């Protein structure tokens, strides 16, 4: 089976973006995107788990009986999450404390399980690796954009507390957009995350519509990518 690496990349980042199109992994997405640093932390952790689990699932795909594949996937994912959790405790302990329960909860992130079941167990290692990387990158990108929106609106800063992730040198990265900002609590609270997410999805759909119109004006092109929509997780 010929593997279309370009399609995999484009699917993960845009067409079948786990956050904007599949709507998977919404729980951490909405819960921890109060600031950019949280978003990057959780995005990176999820991406690492996704890459690791995709790689492993794909490597063992010939040996896994399909009737018990889901428990096996969960065990693989859980092992990677445990690794990440221990790594975070070792190197970014403060961030680990902030993200708290959402790090262990990566195990239940449907985006990761979904990729293992829908892609990695049917495709060779290389393609699965790229898929994990791109899906993770797409997920992280949405997290970071949402985090930036909420941090800018909610606390009037950007990239605050980056030292939690990148060491003491990153403390000076903090941008104060509005001095003496009294805060817009709504953006920090979960309802703000829902509204922000809705706006992001709307923007993506607008861009897609515009692209579609332009494409239609030129030539008919077949639909790309699956449009699975699930709202759990």
């Amino acid at each position, binding site marked *: 089976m010929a593997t279309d690496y370009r399609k995999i990349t484009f699917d993960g980042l845009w067409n079948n973006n786990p956050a904007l199109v599949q709507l998977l992994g919404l729980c951490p997405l909405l819960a921890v995107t109060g600031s950019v640093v949280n978003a990057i932390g959780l995005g990176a952790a999820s991406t690492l788990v996704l890459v690791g689990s995709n790689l492993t699932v794909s490597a063992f795909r010939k040996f896994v009986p399909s009737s018990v594949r889901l428990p096996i996937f969960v065990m693989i994912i859980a092992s990677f999450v445990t690794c990440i959790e221990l790594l975070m405790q070792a190197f970014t302990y403060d961030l680990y404390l902030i993200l708290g329960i959402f790090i262990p909860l990566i195990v239940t992130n449907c985006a990761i399980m979904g990729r293992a079941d829908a892609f990695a167990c049917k495709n060779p290692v290389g393609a699965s690796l790229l898929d994990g990387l791109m899906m993770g990158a797409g997920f992280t990108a949405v997290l970071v954009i949402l985090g930036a929106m909420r941090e800018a609106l909610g606390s009037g800063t950007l990239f605050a507390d980056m030292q939690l992730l990148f060491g003491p040198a990153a403390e000076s990265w903090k941008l104060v957009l509005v001095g003496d900002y009294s805060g817009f609590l709504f953006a920090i609270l979960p*309802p703000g995350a829902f509204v922000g997410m809705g706006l992001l999805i*709307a923007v993506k759909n607008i861009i897609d519509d515009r692209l579609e119109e332009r494409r239609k004006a030129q030539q008919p092109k077949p639909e790309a990518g699956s449009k699975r929509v699930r709202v759990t997780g």
Partner: protein
Amino acid sequence: MALIRVTSPHVHKANRTADVMRLVLLATLPGIAALSFFFGWGTLVQLLWASLLAVGMEAALIKLRRRPVLFYLRDYSAVVTAVLLALAIPPFAPWWLTLVGVFVAIVIAKHLYGGLGQNPFNPAMVAYALLLVSFPVEMTRWAAPTVLLENGTLGLGDTLALIFAGLDPALVDSVTGATPLDALKHRGGLTTEEAWHSIDVLANGVGAWHAVSAGFFMGGVFLLYRKVFTWHIPVSMLATLAVLSTLFFGFAPDQYADPFFHLTVGGTMLGAFFIATDPVTAATSNRGKLYYGAGIGLLIFIIRSWGSYPDAVAFAVLLMNLAAPFIDLYSQPRTYGHAHAKRGLKEDS
């Protein structure tokens, strides 16, 4: 004598949106007058400022959506939303609070959902709830009824300075205070009876809220008389609230406020006649309206008595907005001459 024969339809004039909206605006006048009398110029300033913003944003949004601007602006719906929001927020709220509120009401709660008639939630209440959640300090600093408490009223100039130029904290403290609901909620260890005597705003100032409620009640009755809405929602909402508060007050008068208090302070009257009756977001059939109003009354009592916010009209209305489609499904009236309608979700659909 020749009788003119006219065939149906016999309705001569359609009840156009703009007419209804104008009537609603007219009906808010007694309430506005009472608010201005007791709480100073702030209400009028907020009304003007909110209306200006709302019309501006409405025009911009209609333009963005490539629809005829003047046609939609003339339905007055943006002004009504702005007026209801301005009546709900504190008279001395800073200018940016109103700006954020109007933006949320017009842009997010109304036009992002598809404009007038498409919004599932009452725009003014969405904005109010968002402001209350986001800016608790500014939103709970209601004007004190200075006329009654005799600590001096603010002139128009001072009011404008307070709202637009920001402020001298001492001045803010002297002209603002807790609302009766707030005072009663945070009365500490006092019983209701003790609170009535010892808290200034309850002992001397509560008349202002009674007057404002009376104003909105008069406006509401006028709208009922002009058949802008039916009696179902306000009556069931007020009756539910009255019955519940009578029950609880009867059993534990030390803990709970009396029914008259519940009906005449806070946003009860404004909510019953002007907010809950919004035809877009309320239930449709008469039976459905009864359920809808009762739900709002129930939620208001629950949130006021045991919730963490002093008043509850906005949250109650929003929650019931959410339930309105469900109520509609289960309260479809029977068509004359047909069997009872099968209620709920049709199996074949």
